[in-house]
């Protein structure tokens, strides 16, 4: 018997004005994993939630057939759905920090699942909580049960969330982006736990935008776009031999899965940027504990590390936005740190930032023309020439002049980032600092922006300091790479060398955590090089 | 509320002398069939609360009223105004009216057990006149005080530097009430705080006091020295009295109507109708003797130094209509600065001699050069609006506002500067930065006129000569009246002053203050004193 059997499922929102899911059909068997793949807004979450009767208060759900654990759920009232939830279908969502009640100990959260269906006698509940925590691999379960979510690490949190979802032993587990909020290394371990549950017979409905995760876990894939399932099939078949146009697009956009473009010989010449022994402290905490590197014209240096490793602080020191406590920064051979702002001001045009969040990076009141115009004015472009130059810059970053009068709120995320890039290019810099330039963007947009950056780099011969937590992206765009951990640069070298033979255990761990597909996908590209 | 409210609000002082032909209002008089009960309690609502409860210090009328049950005086004054022995069995006045010798009762015991004697009385006069006491009123009542001396254990003599006939009336006031000498040593904190600090020899002892809420009194069972005409003898009939402070008129009346209190004073005229219509309630009223409510015009000010402008102001106000409207026909309109009930001094010949005449007022103002008109219809001269500045301590009364509205019709802007801020008002009055001051001041003696018109009684100099009159003739008449012991002679002198004041338009009398007391019909034998406050001593309440 199938655990889930849905035929022609439709979900509408807002009194029928938004058709979120159209005629979707799917089936889930015990011990199997079905992955729903698509970009945000594709309707995959609405579809999954409708299997719990939780599509939302404004939602209308219809289906030709909707059987869950053998019961026909069409016409179910709130009371009937309550019996299904938790007992037959469990939910694991994205971030346990918010998906578990932060004001209650995790033990209470798991207990709530147990008591909701009275699957365990009241006096056995404590024992059962400990069992469950043990089962999902939480050490010292008795103590953990008394702790709150914020007291647990990301991995343990997610395990606790899974424990609360499987407490009443549901046959079906919906995992909605279960690892997105986790660091790479922890991600792998949580995926292993889900895999184990699947092996034990749970039917897993996985929702993810990360194809690597999907490949690691799913037996079957359903690709959704605009509420429609455009393609379904066994995972390997869909990923290796996509039949639908959209699936192909999606696959091509995943960073790191694309061929690494040929790169010229490593740059030579006088260093544009020289960082020597830079240390930056905030109170008792040392954010950067001694960084040394140089950057030559035309060279791209990747800076990799998890959040809190000191990447952004180092970038701010390089940009002259923060003064180092020790060490020096030379720009174009002249001191850049330790000089008054007045001395820096005229030289600032040399080095420009492309920020992570382009929305906050532009004045919300200003139209595009003024945003770019300010940058041109700051570098002495006469007023008369500004409009023409702005149009040229917009064209250079792939934007049309009709956006000139738009304000940031009326632009898409990708457009905004392009405007930010145009502004950074306006003073004709020699060095770009890109701080996670694509991590706030959708996957398909990410690829376009990365392409743009790479093109600009080649055309203009810019040196780039490229900061990212995403190894795949770094590998794609950088010549050299530095790995940071707790403020210390633990390893650096040419990208190929570091990726092929990581010397530091931390680098190794980072690389191991990258899902299989992302790694293997590079093999042919390397060969082609 | 600072004591100064007593000056500018309609303040009433315990008055001397008889109230002429007025009947003594009392609730449920002797004619009633009901038999007095010698137990029970009464709750009374008043509109204001003393800041300092020491009658020797406070100038507030309400302090005198609310401390009366606790403190007895040497002399008692009946509601009809006659003086009779109280703590003093008799007194002798020296022929030059400069010395008063009192012989004291010998059976009087203070609430703390001390006996009344001449030393005790001396201690009181010493306390009143001591600098540390900062007496705001009692010391002033003593006028040209020279000193006090013990003549015999039961005889005490008070002397003055010049003849001072009004003293005997002053001796009957609560302000000169006799406190236990021990209690006077407790310091101003304790004396001002009421409660256990107030120790006298009165028919009631001072009970608990909650500021802003209520004060209680308990029967003094040992009391046996009531004056002859107190309407009762021996201990008070009521076991206890509770006084509640309810400043909002509507609330006070509401409390009376709903039976939360048995009696309430200061019933606004516009609410009397409601009370009278209530079958369970009754209303007592009594015209207050002394200075009527009047506007005193600053004759030294820029505006009113011109007698024509003063006369215009006097004639412009439609006093008859306003008094009738605001006080619902209950308060009489005044023609003289003195109340008709002030004994042996009222000049009835002034009546109807200066009727409202807006045409005349207009003509006078035109002559004085106030010929222009501004956008709001006020008269102007050299572009300046005809503004009459009237500082008011407290809030502008309905009557003041009605006058303000009426004067607008004649193009005069009456600027009512109402404030409880003594710094501002006091400064203004002392420095003469005003055009008119409106007030009433109760006293059963024509001598009140000297407070208002004697040249040295300026605001800065402890007096109420707000009109800033400096006329040798007036001074002469007033001095003669203070020295003469013959009532008819005094009356003649006072009549001169009244006539002069009206003819020179230094004052615009408006209405005769009338005290209204609302009471449940269950309350009996509650009468209004000479100063128109209820006397609780003889009162009793029907048991429900």
């Amino acid at each position, binding site marked *: 018997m199938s655990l889930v059997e849905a035929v022609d499922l439709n979900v509408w929102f807002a009194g029928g004005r938004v058709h979120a899911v159209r005629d979707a059909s799917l089936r889930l068997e015990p011990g199997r994993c079905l992955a729903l793949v698509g970009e945000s807004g594709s309707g995959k979450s609405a579809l999954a939630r409708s299997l719990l009767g939780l599509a939302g208060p404004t939602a209308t759900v219809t289906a030709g057939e909707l059987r869950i654990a053998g019961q026909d759920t069409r016409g179910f009232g709130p009371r009937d759905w309550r019996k299904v939830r938790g007992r037959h279908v469990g939910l694991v969502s994205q971030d346990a920090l918010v998906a578990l009640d932060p004001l209650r100990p995790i033990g209470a959260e798991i207990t709530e699942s147990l008591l909701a269906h009275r699957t365990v006698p009241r006096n056995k509940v404590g024992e059962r909580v400990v069992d469950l925590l043990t089962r999902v691999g939480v050490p010292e379960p008795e103590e953990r049960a008394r702790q709150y979510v914020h007291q647990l690490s990301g991995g343990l949190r997610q395990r606790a969330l899974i424990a609360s979802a499987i407490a009443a032993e549901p046959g079906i587990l919906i995992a909605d982006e279960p690892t997105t909020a986790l660091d790479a290394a922890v991600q792998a371990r949580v995926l292993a736990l889900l895999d184990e549950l699947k092996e034990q017979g749970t039917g897993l409905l996985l929702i993810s935008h990360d194809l690597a995760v999907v490949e690691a876990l799913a037996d079957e894939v359903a690709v959704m776009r605009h509420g429609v399932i455009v393609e379904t099939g066994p995972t390997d078949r869909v990923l290796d031999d996509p039949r639908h146009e959209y699936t192909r697009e999606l696959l091509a956009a995943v960073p790191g899965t694309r061929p690494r473009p040929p790169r010229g010989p490593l740059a030579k010449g006088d260093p544009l940027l020289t960082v020597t022994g830079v240390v930056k402290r905030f109170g008792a905490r040392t954010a950067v504990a001694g960084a040394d590197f140089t950057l030559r014209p035309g060279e791209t240096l990747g800076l990799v590390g998890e959040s809190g490793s000191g990447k952004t602080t180092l970038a701010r020191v390089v940009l002259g936005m923060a003064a180092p406590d020790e060490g020096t920064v030379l720009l174009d051979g002249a001191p850049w740190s330790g000089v008054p702002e007045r001395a820096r001001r005229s030289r600032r045009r040399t080095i420009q930032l492309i920020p992570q969040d382009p929305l906050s990076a532009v004045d919300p009141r200003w139209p595009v023309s003024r945003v770019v115009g300010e940058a041109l004015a700051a570098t002495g472009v006469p007023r008369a020439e500004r409009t023409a130059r702005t149009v040229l810059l917009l064209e250079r970053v792939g934007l049309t002049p009709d956006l000139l009068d738009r304000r940031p709120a009326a632009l898409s995320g990708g457009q905004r980032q392009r405007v930010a890039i145009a502004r950074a290019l306006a003073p004709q810099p020699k060095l770009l600092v890109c701080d996670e330039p694509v991590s706030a963007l959708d996957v398909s947009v990410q690829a376009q922006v990365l392409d743009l950056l790479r093109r600009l780099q080649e055309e203009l011969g810019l040196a780039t300091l490229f900061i990212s937590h995403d190894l795949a992206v770094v590998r794609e765009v950088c010549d050299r790479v530095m790995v940071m951990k707790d403020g210390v640069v633990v390893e650096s070298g040419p990208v190929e060398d570091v990726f092929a033979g990581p010397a530091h255990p931390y680098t190794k761990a980072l690389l191991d955590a990258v899902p299989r597909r992302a790694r293997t996908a590079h093999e042919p590209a390397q060969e082609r090089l | 509320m600072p004591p100064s409210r007593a000056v500018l609000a309609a303040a009433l002082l315990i008055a001397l002398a008889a109230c002429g032909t007025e009947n003594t209002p009392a609730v449920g008089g002797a004619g009633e069939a009901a038999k007095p009960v010698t137990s029970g309690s009464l709750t009374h609502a008043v509109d204001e609360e003393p800041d300092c409860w020491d009658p020797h210090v406070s100038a507030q009328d309400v302090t005198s009223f609310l401390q009366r049950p606790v403190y007895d005086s040497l002399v008692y004054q009946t509601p009809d105004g006659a003086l009779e022995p109280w703590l003093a069995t008799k007194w002798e006045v020296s022929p030059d009216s400069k010395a008063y010798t009192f012989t004291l009762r010998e059976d009087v015991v203070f609430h703390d057990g001390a006996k009344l004697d001449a030393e005790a009385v001396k201690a009181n006069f010493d306390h009143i006149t001591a600098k540390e006491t900062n007496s705001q009123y009692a010391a002033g009542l003593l006028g040209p005080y020279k000193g006090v001396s013990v003549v015999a254990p039961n005889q005490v003599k008070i002397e003055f530097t010049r003849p001072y006939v009004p003293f005997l009336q002053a001796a009957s006031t609560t302000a000169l009430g006799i406190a236990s000498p021990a209690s006077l040593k407790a310091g101003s904190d304790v004396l001002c705080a009421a409660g256990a600090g107030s120790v006298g020899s009165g028919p009631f002892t001072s009970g608990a006091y909650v500021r802003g809420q209520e004060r209680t009194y308990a029967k003094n069972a040992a009391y046996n020295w009531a004056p002859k005409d107190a309407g009762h003898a021996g201990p008070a009939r009521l076991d206890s009295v509770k006084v509640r402070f309810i400043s*909002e008129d509507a*609330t006070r009346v509401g409390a009376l109507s709903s039976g939360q209190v048995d009696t309430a004073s200061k019933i606004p005229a516009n609410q009397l109708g409601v009370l009278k219509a209530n079958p369970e309630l009754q209303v007592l009223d009594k015209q207050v003797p002394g200075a009527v409510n009047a506007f005193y015009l600053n004759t030294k000010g820029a505006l009113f130094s011109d007698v024509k402008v003063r006369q215009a102001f006097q004639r412009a106000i439609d006093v008859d209509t306003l008094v009738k409207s605001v006080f619902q026909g209950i308060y009489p309109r005044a023609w003289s600065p003195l109340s008709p009930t002030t004994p042996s001094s009222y000049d009835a010949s002034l009546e109807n001699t200066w009727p409202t005449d807006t045409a005349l007022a207009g003509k006078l103002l035109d002559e004085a050069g106030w010929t222009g008109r501004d956008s709001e219809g006020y008269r102007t001269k050299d572009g300046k609006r005809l503004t009459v500045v009237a500082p008011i301590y407290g809030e502008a009364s309905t009557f003041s506002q009605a006058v303000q509205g009426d004067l607008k019709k004649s193009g005069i802007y009456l600027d009512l500067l109402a404030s409880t801020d003594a710094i501002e008002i006091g400064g203004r009055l002392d420095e003469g930065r005003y055009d008119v001051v409106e007030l009433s001041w109760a006293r059963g003696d024509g001598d009140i006129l000297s407070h208002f018109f004697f040249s040295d009684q300026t605001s800065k100099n402890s007096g109420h000569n707000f009109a800033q009159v400096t006329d040798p003739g007036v001074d002469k008449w007033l001095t003669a009246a203070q020295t003469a012991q013959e009532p008819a002679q005094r009356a003649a002198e006072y009549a001169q002053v009244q006539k002069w004041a009206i003819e020179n338009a230094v004052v615009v009398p408006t209405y005769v203050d009338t005290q209204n007391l609302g009471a449940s019909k269950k309350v009996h034998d509650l009468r209004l004193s000479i100063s128109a406050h209820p006397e609780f001593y003889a009162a009793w309440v029907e048991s429900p």
Partner: protein
Amino acid sequence: MRGVLARLVSAALVVWAAATCAFLVLQLIPGDPVYAIVGSDALVSEEQHERIREEYGLDQPLVAQYLNYVVRLATFRFGESYQLQQPVSTVLADQLWPTVQLALAATVLAPLLAVLVAVATSGRAAWPRRVAAAVELVVVSTPSFWLGIMLLTIFSFRLGWLPVAETGGVASLVLPTITLALPIAAVLTQVMREGLLSALDQPFAVTARARGVPETAVRYRHALRHSAIPALTMAGWFTGTLLGGAVIVENVFARPGIGRITLQAVGDRDLPVVQGVVALSAVVFVAVAALIDVLYAVVDPRLRRRTGVQAI
């Protein structure tokens, strides 16, 4: 221990700063304070004025007056009231209880009302929410003095159900409490409902529903506690409103209390009393702030200092 000390020091600083502000403000008042002491009654001579000036230390240089003031403040003496000729501390102590009664009653009533209405109107149906929102808007927009007057007119004067003035009994506390609590309750309801609704939209509420927990249990067990956090943030405002509201409510209902004495002192320029009230309300504010910090920690374990250690 260090935390407690730091807390005390910063609390003392706030009180000191507020008191200093009050002192400076009162120096700016034009005119001679002696009039405030003796009143404008002219039965006091020039000479007596001088003596009073001396007695109250008004003849000393400003710095000396200030130091004197701070020292007195630190020892909880506020000097003597100009008007009542009693120590300010005595005056305030006498008036404290009626205000505390009123404030406590309102403190109980307002959150109670707020919780009831917020929970009742945070359900799926939108119309109770709309009705409640409209009522809240009206209540919040109604100045408390008018609300009080209207309640008084209707329930005391027209219907005669409740006493028109303070009697010391519970009945006379009803209308003042409602007048004081209603606007607070309306604002609290808005905040709590917003908190509830946003909590019900949070992932943890979805998780709880996905466990098969009934909607009401989600609301009471999870969301209500979350909505208490923004409500607690309002506590400073709440305290201020209680004290400020007391000024108005006590005057409307002719009740004794700190509010009444404050208005009187302001009207009379009874500066020692004003300074006393300022110091008192600063102390209350600081105390409430400390209490709220404790409550925060009770409600939200993330704010408990000791438990903030990351356990991996």
